[in-house]
């Protein structure tokens, strides 16, 4: 995959993405109100908050699935009213989903391969023959995908249809699919939901590795405070669609508003 640094010319620490006073509402429901924050290149940025606070919606705004009524999004220096899914994807934003959204009918391998569609541009003609350029391209990408499979230790389920996999593994495959896009910004929506301690530890390790091996910037939504506090560099806290806190884990942990709204009695 990619070496740190990267094509976009940004170096670690620069602002990769900034949402500026974004508001989103559905009919009556105000999902997000005037939220602003930024994500710096190379950091792990956590977004936490009670259920229905607008976390997922925020991710949807970032990669262009929802279009905010108000506010601006700056990504890699370009400022937009709203993102478009295709633009987001081709500009290196990829994500995983809260309710696993894998391609159920396809094998693990195909799912991850599908993640590379954007990168495969061989001519349709050769596709017909599955030889020559088409095959070469296929194999080259297959190599990349195998790297990811090894990395995530899911060799054994390469050929299984993902629909039959247990929840935890599905989440892992989904991460694989996201990685296959070689993203600059990786959005993870509750990657550890429904996992036991050990699996969470594995998942944490994957996230960390991705982050420091490939220098991928990560936005992480997670309800397991332990994980969040340990992994993230900075944390945004949302409640009822508003930003109530933003800062390092320690700042956030000790923030009374956050404790009332979310953490409850610290444990």
């Amino acid at each position, binding site marked *: 995959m990619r070496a740190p640094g990267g094509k976009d010319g940004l170096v670690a620490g620069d602002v990769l993405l900034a949402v500026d006073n974004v508001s989103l509402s559905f009919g009556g429901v105000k999902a997000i109100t005037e939220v602003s924050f930024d994500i710096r290149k190379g950091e792990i940025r956590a977004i936490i908050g009670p259920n229905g606070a607008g976390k997922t919606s925020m991710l949807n705004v970032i*990669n*262009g*699935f929802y279009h905010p009524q108000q506010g601006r999004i700056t990504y890699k220096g370009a400022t937009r009213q709203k993102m478009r*899914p*295709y633009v*987001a*994807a*081709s500009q290196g934003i*990829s*994500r995983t*989903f809260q309710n696993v*959204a*894998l*391609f*159920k*009918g*396809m094998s693990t391998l*195909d799912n991850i*391969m*599908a*993640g590379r*569609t*954007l990168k*495969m541009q*061989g001519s*349709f003609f050769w*596709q*017909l*023959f*599955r030889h020559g350029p*088409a*095959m070469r*391209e*296929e*194999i080259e990408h*297959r*190599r990349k995908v*195998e790297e990811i499979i090894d990395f995530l230790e899911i060799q054994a389920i390469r050929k299984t249809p993902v629909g039959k996999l247990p929840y935890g593994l599905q989440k892992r495959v989904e991460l694989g*699919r996201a990685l296959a*896009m070689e993203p600059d910004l990786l959005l993870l929506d509750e990657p550890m939901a429904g996992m036991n301690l050990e699996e969470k530890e594995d998942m944490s390790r994957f996230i960390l590795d991705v982050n420091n091996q490939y220098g991928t910037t990560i936005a992480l939504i997670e309800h397991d405070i332990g994980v969040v506090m340990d992994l993230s560099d900075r944390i945004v806290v949302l409640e009822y669609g508003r930003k109530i806190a933003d800062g390092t884990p320690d700042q956030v942990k000790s923030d009374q508003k956050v404790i009332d709204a979310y953490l409850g009695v610290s444990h």
Partner: protein
Amino acid sequence: MFYREAGQYKTSYAADMAIFPIRQDRIGIAVILLIAFVIIPVFGNQFFLSSVMIPTLVFSLAAIGLNILTGYTGLISLGTAAFMGVGAYACYKLTSWFPGVNILVWIIASGFVSAGVGALFGLPSLRIKGFYLVVATLAAQFFLQWCFVRIPWLVNYNTSGAIEVPERTLFGVVITGANATPTARYLVLLSVVAALTWFASNLVHGRVGRAWMAVRDMDIAAELMGIRLLTTKLLAFAVSSFYCGVAGALMVFLWYGSAEPEVFVINQSFLVLFMVIIGGLGSLIGSFMGAALIYMLPIVLRMLPAALGLPIASATVEHLQFIIVGALIIVFLIAEPHGLARLWQTGKQKLRIWPFPY
């Protein structure tokens, strides 16, 4: 026979990505091709060739076409017959304009014509989803059918209002028209079908196929991954219609020999849809199995009483045959909703772990 992949290691990705990774499967395919190309033409009698094999092959091709759209891309279509019609009429026009050019060329070309038409009617698919999309394809079905009836130009103003297939040859052998022997027609048809099947399987196993399936399984996720929905869907429509178009052309030129617009009525669309579902959505082999079952079953059932010497009136046989086919469809679905193809796989699975139950 032992069906095991034990001891067959993949040393290269290429080998692993082969469409039939397991040796036994490759052998199986070889055998099937041998039977199809040699045994059947040599030993099959006229009736078997022209009333069983030829129709089955034609429908298999159409089924593959529809499968690409419905099985792989998840877009239900009831316009199959119409797109077949487009192919047929296009081929007729082309060959009567340029009688000199080899008919096979025009058969393929007509596929492109219907691909275009297909893509056109596919446009609404971006906005309209699921069963609602059916209406778009139905509009295609009925509108095109109306055109076939209404535009005498399509049939060179024949008073019969039908396509009258002229005689055409390939390497000096007559392959269309009344003088073409079933064997000749069968072999040509078989070659075309085999080739197109190979292309299809290459497509669905590659990038394109993955994009289609992604759209089928979860279009939103696919979109967020940068798969362009419209282009993918339109491509599916085009390719699918291409196959249907070619199937239609073959149907009229190598099988019917003459076709009224009534040939391309909606019932035929349904028939193909049966085949796809019974055979197995998203499976090419399934398309063949489905076509074979749905087309041959009635024939067999109709012959049965005579063969057994039962004095049942042909009409009664017809009724019973309807009942039985209907019942069987249901039985098959219950046995394996994912179609014959899946049934086949599960069978192989069991074979693998044989003699243990699980």
